[in-house]
């Protein structure tokens, strides 16, 4: 398998639920999507817009309401579970509770589509499992009890299971939820390397927008009642799509920083003079507290003026109403500003 090959294509796909009397609750309509090998695709969107339903539909758990899903030009609806199992592997949000089982045995589940009648592992299977454990970075955990692992380690085990399944397509539903920050990064790095080096098409859902912007090759944005937008992260930022899909009254997408800003009560306007790291972080702190920064520094202005110098002592100099205060850190400065107000 090489990179940049089409693995999955949907045409005019509608997803959702069918209820009684043939009624249909469509969550998304007219989806024309594609996944290629060697690419990590992140599916972003607010809760309830149909992210999990899309993953479930693409992996054959749910019947598509309309349209078609094709895996390697073969319609998904015509494939048996055994055939799908060799093309698509999933990692779901549902907790896995297998009782008494070692990590090795859990990863060995990935070989189920390939083993014989009794599911006995052959020598090749053992090799694939070993390799999957190592590629997922959990080679040392093989003999540990699965139930005793941390959430991040469990997630890696399930990814190793998917690797052992040797499918060109990997779907992961919120693989980074409930993980601490370093574990989130580790998981996304692992997935990106898997996509790039092992020529997999990986689709994952996540709420970690910043991580998605940093790791995704492609992003699909999904919203309630809005069409899905696809593209590489930077293009989506430039076209201001993030704002459209995520803006609420209290959050705004800052197109310069590539991250969200949050509304805060206005406290006043200040001038800041200086440069460098200390200047940058001071501006961030002032914005967080609700101060607006004046565009230009004018000595004669009535606004408080903060001067940032590079020295160790008295780094921050606050000039307000004729008096001058020297402070060593931002906390002192913010407290002073609060006193004066």
């Amino acid at each position, binding site marked *: 398998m090489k990179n940049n090959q089409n693995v999955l294509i949907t045409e005019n796909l509608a997803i959702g639920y069918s209820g009684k009397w043939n009624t249909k609750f469509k969550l998304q309509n007219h989806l024309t999507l594609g996944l290629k090998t060697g690419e990590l695709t992140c599916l972003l969107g607010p809760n309830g817009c149909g992210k999990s339903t899309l993953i479930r539909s693409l992996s054959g758990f749910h019947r598509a309401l309309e349209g078609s899903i094709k895996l390697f030009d073969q319609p998904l609806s015509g494939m048996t579970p055994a055939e799908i199992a060799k093309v698509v592997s999933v990692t779901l949000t549902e907790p*896995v509770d297998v009782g008494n*089982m*070692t990590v090795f045995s859990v990863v060995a*589940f990935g070989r189920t589509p390939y083993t014989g009648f009794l599911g006995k592992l052959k020598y090749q299977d053992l090799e694939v499992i*070993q390799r999957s454990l190592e590629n997922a970075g959990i*080679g040392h955990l*093989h003999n540990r009890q699965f139930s005793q692992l941390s959430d991040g380690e469990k997630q890696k085990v399930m990814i190793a299971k998917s690797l052992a399944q040797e499918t060109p397509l990997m779907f992961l539903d919120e693989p980074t939820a409930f993980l601490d920050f370093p574990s989130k990064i580790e998981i996304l790095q692992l997935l990106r390397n898997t996509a790039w080096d092992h020529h997999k098409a990986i689709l994952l859902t996540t709420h970690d927008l910043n991580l998605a912007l940093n790791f995704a090759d492609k992003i699909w944005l999904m919203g309630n009642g809005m069409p899905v937008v696809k593209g590489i992260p930077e293009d989506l930022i430039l076209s201001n799509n993030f704002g459209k899909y995520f803006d609420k009254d209290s959050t705004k997408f800052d197109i310069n920083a590539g991250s969200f800003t949050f509304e805060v009560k206005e406290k006043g306007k200040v001038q800041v003079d200086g440069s460098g790291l200390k200047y940058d972080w001071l501006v961030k702190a002032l914005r967080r507290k609700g101060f607006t920064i004046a565009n230009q520094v004018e000595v004669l202005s009535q606004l408080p003026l903060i001067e940032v110098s590079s020295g160790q002592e008295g780094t921050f100099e606050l000039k307000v109403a004729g008096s001058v205060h020297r402070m060593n850190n931002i906390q002192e400065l913010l407290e002073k500003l609060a006193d004066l107000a």
Partner: protein
Amino acid sequence: MKNAGEIYIEGNKRQAIKLFTILILIIIFFILNIAWGSVFVPFPEIIKVLTGSQPENLSWGTIILNTRLPQALTSVLAGAALGVCGLMMQTLFRNPLAGPSVLGISSGASLGVAVMMLFVTFPGGKFVVLNQVLGNFSVIFAAFAGAFAVLILIGILAGRFKSSTIILIMGIMIAYAVTALVSVLQFYSLKEDLQAFVIWGLGSFANVSWKNMGFFSIIIVAGILLAVSLVKPLNALLLGENYAQNLGISLKKSRILIILATGILTAAVTAYCGPIAFLGLAIPHLSRNLLKTADHLINIPGVILTGALLALFCNLIARLPGFDGALPINAITSIIGAPAVIWIIFKRNEFRVQA
């Protein structure tokens, strides 16, 4: 440094040794079952009987060959069957409390037996001696009919509902309803018939005569073979139904086959031995704990062997020389099984409150 695969294979070898140890224990308990009872038979005489030569006392031959030997064999078969049923139910419903009785299958069998015993009069006359009753094929047939009526109902539900939990709840409801029907039947039945039915309900491994042994063992072996063929879907179901499906398992087909295998085994055991309480629930816990694995490729032999051993043990206790005749097997299975399960749960750290 050994790699993970080698360690995995070594683990399998250790489990094989454990299983072999249980097999030896089964042989020991089998012999004890034959040797021990309310009538004392000297050991050399037992050997004589078993090797086909004439014992000193002719009644010893009858006791051993026609009472103790079939009883021990029935214990082995019933214990193995109940263990396999319990394991399959616990995996399918992902519930450690599931057992062959929860789906109402044994209640269904009871209903069949109740209808036959309490209301149908046979040309042969009233049933007083239980052996006679079970010798009658129609009672066995009634048990099967009752069990399968419930089974088909469950099967239809299994196809229509996605979640196994829903099916489990339905099964429990069906069991309640069927049990209630049985008590209504009991209320309207004659005293002598009722007595025979109540004794059947207490459970016993002593009711399968040589005449019925062939049929009984064929059904049990067939049911167990069907269960063995389901090892792969059972294992995949450990991960949950969605993961199982993604591993290429056809959920609907597997679910129906698992329920069918359980139904065949439960119906056979219930028909011949009465509704045996608790063994089905306790055996899988014993096996999993002993073998330290959830893998069905190891646990199916595991429950077959621990089931046979536990049933032989219970049967032995029920017939200890101190007790006159034999205690009802249901009393023994619960007295032994309940503390065993409590002990297992107590030993496992993850269930305990962290101090």
